[in-house]
C-alpha cells in the first residue's frame, strides 16, 4: 500500500467529515469524576480522554478474572485485568479494571460491551484515569464498595443485604 495513497486518503477524510458521524456518545466521558484523583480537573480529563483503562462495575463477587478476560477480550487484546478487592477481606468485591494495549479497543468495549450481561448481571464500564496502587480496594467503611454500604435491597451476587442493613 503506497504512502501517497495513504496520505491522499487521510487528506480526503480530514477535508470532509460530518459531526453527526463523529457522534460517539457511548465512548464519551461520563459525568463521574473520581474524587480521590490527585491533580486538577483538567489533568484528570486529559488522562481520561487518552486512557486505555476501563473501570467495570456491578460485577458479581463470584465473577472471575477469566470470565472478564473472555468477555472484554472480544473488543481487543487485553494488557491487564485488576480485580477490585474488599480492603479488609481481600476478596473480590464486585468491580475491576481492564487495561487494553490500544485506546481504540477500549473504545469498542465502551460501545459494545458496556450495558451487556456478565454472569447474568448488566455490567457498566467507564473510563478510568489509570490504575494506581491502592485503587484496587473498595472505599466503603466496611471494606467493600460504597454502594454496598447503604443499599437496601438483597443482592445474592454481592453479599446479600447492604452493610448498614445487616
Amino acid at each position, binding site marked *: 500500500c503506497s504512502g501517497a495513497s495513504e496520505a491522499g486518503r487521510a487528506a480526503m477524510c480530514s477535508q470532509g467529515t460530518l*459531526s453527526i458521524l463523529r457522534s460517539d456518545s457511548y465512548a464519551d466521558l461520563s459525568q463521574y469524576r473520581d474524587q480521590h484523583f490527585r491533580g486538577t480537573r483538567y489533568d484528570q480529563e486529559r488522562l481520561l480522554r487518552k486512557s486505555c483503562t476501563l473501570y467495570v462495575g456491578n460485577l458479581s463477587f463470584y465473577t472471575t478474572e*477469566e470470565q472478564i478476560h473472555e468477555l472484554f477480550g472480544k473488543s481487543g487484546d487485553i494488557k491487564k485485568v*485488576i480485580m477490585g478487592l474488599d480492603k479488609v477481606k481481600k476478596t473480590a468485591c464486585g468491580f475491576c479494571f481492564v487495561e487494553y494495549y490500544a485506546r481504540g479497543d477500549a473504545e469498542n468495549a465502551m*460501545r459494545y460491551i458496556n450495558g451487556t450481561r*456478565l454472569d447474568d448481571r448488566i455490567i457498566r464500564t467507564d473510563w478510568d484515569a489509570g490504575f494506581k496502587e491502592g485503587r484496587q480496594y473498595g472505599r466503603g467503611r466496611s471494606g467493600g464498595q460504597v454502594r454496598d454500604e447503604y443499599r437496601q435491597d438483597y443482592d445474592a451476587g454481592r453479599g446479600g443485604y447492604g452493610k448498614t442493613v445487616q
Partner: protein
Amino acid sequence: MSRRRRHSDESDGQPYKRRRTSEPSEIEERLESLICRVGEKSTSSLESNLEGLAGVLEADLPNYKSKILRILCTVARLLPEKLTIYTTLVGLLNARNYNFGGEFVEAMIRQLKECLKVNMYNEAEYLVRFLSDLVNCHVIAAPSMVAMFENFVSVTQEEDIPQVRCDWYVFAFLSSLPWVGKELYEKKDAEIDRLLSHTESYLKRRQKIHVPMLQVWTADKPHPQEEYLDCLWAQIQKLKKDRWQERHILRPYLAFDSILCEALQHNLPPFTPPPHTEDSVYPMPRVIFRMFDYTDDPEGPVMPGSHSVERFVIEENLHCIIKSHWKERKTWFINWFSHHLSNFQFRWSWEDWSDCLTQDLEKPKSKFVREVLEKCMRLSYHQRIIDIVPPSFSVLSPASPVCIYKYGDESNRSLPGYTVALCLTIAIKNKASNDEIFNILKDVPNPNKDDDDDEGFTFNPLKIEVFVQTLLHLSAKSFSHSFSALAKFHEVFKVLAESDEGKLHVLRVVYEVWKNHPQMIAVLVDKMIRTQIVDCAAVANWIFSSELAHDFTRFYVWEILHSTIRKMNKHVLKIHKELEETKARLARQHKRRESDDDDDDDQSSDREDGPLEEQIERLQERVESAQSEQKNLFLVIFQRFIMLLTEHLVRCETGGIDVFTSWYKSCIERLQQIFLQHHQIIQQYMVTLENLLFTAELDHHILAVFQQFCALQA
C-alpha cells in the same frame, strides 16, 4: 473567573472582536447540522423540509457557497442511505441557481477522481450513484451520464489489467441502474442496450476461480451462494424485463417534478477512468451470503425474491447504515452465538440438536456444539454448563479446566526430575531469586546428552519440563498469578528457552499442564510472545507439531495462531510508524535550519543531524528485520500446511480411502482462512510463494487453494 471577565470588559474591542470571529463558524455548524438532519423524523413533511432548506441555502449562497459545496459533497460520499433526499435538495438548488448546480457537479467529479486515485472504492460507488440520481432531478443531462457509463464499461477492453479493475467499473454502472435505469432507457435505449450487451459478454468471459474460496456453505440448498456480479446481473436483467419499474427507493423529487423540469441541466464533463497503476488496489470480489429468503417468515410482508432488484437495494442500504453508524450501536457465528446465549442465561433448546450426539465428534454439527459449549463455559464456569445442558450432552461438554501437574502425586516419584521439582516448589514458595533457581536446576541431567554440559546453555528438555511444570502449577490460581510468575522468573525462561528447540519445548510443556484450559494456554502464549520468551515462528511450529495433532481442529488453536499473526503484523506497523515519525522530525529540522540564518557553518548543522540520522538508520534496520520475521512466519505456516496436507493426501491415495474426511475439510478451510484473513500482507509474498512453496509439483488439491487466492486480485 470574575476578574478575567472584568478585564475583558475594560480592554479595547476584545469582546467585540471575539463575537465577530465566532459567528462564521457558528453559521457553518448550523448549516452542517441543517443539511445533515434533513430527512430525519420531523413534524413537517419531508417535502416541506426540503423546500425550506433549499430556501435557506439559496439565501446563504453569496457568503457560504464553498462551505455548502463541501458539506453537500461530503454527505453524498458519507450518507449514501439518504442519497435521494440530497439529490432532490441539489435539484431544488440547481433550479434556483444554475451556476451553483454546475459548480456542484464539477466538485463531485473532482471528488470522484480523487477517491479513485486513493483506492476509496466504496465512496466512489456512492458518488457515481449520486451523480446518476441527479439525472432524475434534472441536474445532469441523461446523454452525458450515459457517456460516462460508456467510459466505465470500456474499461473491460483495456489490456493487461487486473480483472478486479473491470469488475468495479462494471459494478458501478450496474448498481446505479435501479436508481436511473428508467430515465436513461427512456432517453437512450439503444446506447443502454449496447452497454448491457457489452457487460453481458464481459461477465461471460471473466474468470470465477475465486468463488469456491469465498463460499461459506458447501451445498447450494437452501440458499445458493452466487458470485456478487452474477447476482447483480440477474437482478438488473429482471429489472429491465419489468420495464425498469423499481418500487422500493424513496424518490422525493417526484413531488417537485413541476419545479425540477423547468431547470436547466448540466452536461457531465467527459470522464476518463484514472489509469491502472501499481498502487491501485481494487475491492475483492464477494459471494452473496444470505440466511433468509421469502419462504422464511410466512406471516410477515413478502420478502423480495433473491433476484429482485429490491433485494439488492435493501441489502445495499443495510451495508451503508452498518458502515457509517458503527460507532452508535441501535465473525464468527460461534463467538456471537455463545455471547448471545450468555445474555439469556444460556437458555436454548439443546434437545433439538441431540442428533449430533451419535455422530463422529469431528462432524461439523457436533463440533459446533462443542465449541459453543466451551465458549459458554469461558463466559461463566464449568458447573454452570454441566447444569444447563441435558445429561446426554456430556460427551460434548468441555473438560473441567484444571491444571495437570505431573510431579504432583507421591506415586510419580520415580519420574526423572521429581526431586528437583519438589526442591523448586519449596524454593519458589520461599521467594527464591532467579539465581537460586538456576542453582537448583543445575543438577538436572540432560537426557539428550551422555556427558553433562556445564553452563546449561544447550537445550535441556528435562530442565524446561521441571521448571515450567512446577511454576505453572504453583501459579495456577488465576491469570494474574501466572503472569506474575512469568514476570518474576523471566530471566530463567529466557535462558532455558534461548534455542529454537527450547522455545518449542516450553510451549509443549505449557500445553501438557493446561490442555484442559485452552483459555489459559492462549493467554500464556500471548504473554510469552510479548515478553519475548518465545517468538511467533516457534508458536507456528508448535501448532503444527505432532503433540498438538489431537487438538488441531479445535477453535482455540486457530485463535492462538491468528492472534500470533496479528501481533506480528502490529509489531511491524509500530516500528514502521516510528521510522516515519523520526524521518518527519528530521525533515522539520532541516526546514527550520533553512529558514534560519545562513551564517551557520556546515559542520554544526551536520552534527545536529547526526543523532537523528543514526536513529533513522537503526529504525530502518529494525523495520527490515521485523518484516523479514513476518515473512518467515507466513512461510513457516504455509510450509507446515503443505506438509500436513500432502501427508494426508498420500496416505489416502495409497490406502485407497476417500480424501475428503472431516479433518481434511477443516484443514483446507483453515488454510483458506489464513489467506483471506491476512490477504493484504500475503500479497507482498506472491512471488516467493509461487516459486518456493506453491509450485506445479504440488498436489492439485492444495495448489487449487493458492490459485483461487491469486484469482481474487487478478
